[in-house]
């Protein structure tokens, strides 16, 4: 019976987050971060966006997407700090900062998304 460790669960979250981030973030970043601000494409109207966001399915999907992407980023960044800066001995602080940040972000995402009702 394997020792109960949370690492496998964190890795599964990381993998799920990696998949959703890889599928959705590039086009969203292109549109929302570059194409609309630069005027390459007309930004959607306020009414249109509100309409898309109002739908409960959109908000649930967005929440899961944000939460998984944040965990993906947190997990990867944690290991980048271990390996890139060689500060593995500070692992408790790093874990709290990374996963704590992801949790805080997810809570904020829930607040932003679900108070629309």
């Amino acid at each position: 019976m394997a020792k109960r460790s949370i690492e496998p669960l964190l890795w599964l979250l990381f993998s799920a987050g990696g998949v959703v981030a890889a599928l959705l973030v590039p086009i969203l970043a292109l549109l929302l971060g570059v194409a609309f601000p630069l005027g390459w494409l007309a930004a959607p109207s306020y009414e249109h966006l509100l309409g898309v966001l109002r739908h409960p399915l959109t908000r649930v999907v967005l929440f899961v997407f944000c939460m998984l992407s944040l965990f993906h980023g947190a997990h990867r960044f944690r290991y980048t700090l271990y390996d890139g800066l060689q500060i593995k001995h500070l692992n408790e602080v790093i874990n709290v900062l990374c996963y704590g940040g992801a949790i805080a972000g997810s809570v904020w995402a829930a607040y932003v998304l679900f108070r629309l009702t």
Partner: protein
Amino acid sequence: MADRITMRVARYRPEDESGATVHEYEVPCPKEWVVLDGLNYIKDRLDGSLSYRWSCRMGICGSCGMTVNGEPKLTCETFLSDYGDGPVRVEPLRNFPVIRDLVVEIGDFMRKLVRVKPWIVRPNEKPLSEGEYRQTPEEMDEYKQFSMCINCMLCYSACPIYGLDPAFIGPAAIALAQRYNLDSRDEGNEERLDILSEHEGIWGCTFVGECTEVCPKDVDPAGAIQRYKLTAALEGLKSFVMPRSAR
């Protein structure tokens, strides 16, 4: 094509306080010579004090791994002519302590290898009278690639994670554990899971992928590790969700 090439070989004598130095030697460079031939020429004719490991000179024993021009290579499989006019820099295998000249201390890997139990684990062996354990070609294909490992440790040399944290169990050990996990005759998955799912087991790996790049036998340790991460993660999930039945 020059007929002589310069080899810059790292030297280290523990009794000298100066640490590692570099000596230059000029060796002949016939078309078919490999780096190992150059080293043997140096030892036979130029400087008998050079120390290094080698054995089969045909890429199967795994003894002659060294860092050649910054890359981990088997010196018996690396042609001098690939380096043009040279010079060819030969250093000991990176990420291992150096005992002397090009000889590195490999005890760490040896201990890790034993820990993953690279042998068929069966709680109950069949009696001899019942004959052999049979295996179909498809069953053998499952693990055959991972059985090609010659324990040359080039993967450990290429792995930056191992370089940063020698406690990391490392690519070859995990690949060899997988070779037995995937073997239909083996029943030791659970035992190996305990060892491999420690923090310095598979979870230390961040899939850099260099281990697979340098492997001379196409074992693909990176692939073995990622597959095992999935297996171990699903096992871990099962034990979270159904702790009693996973026992």
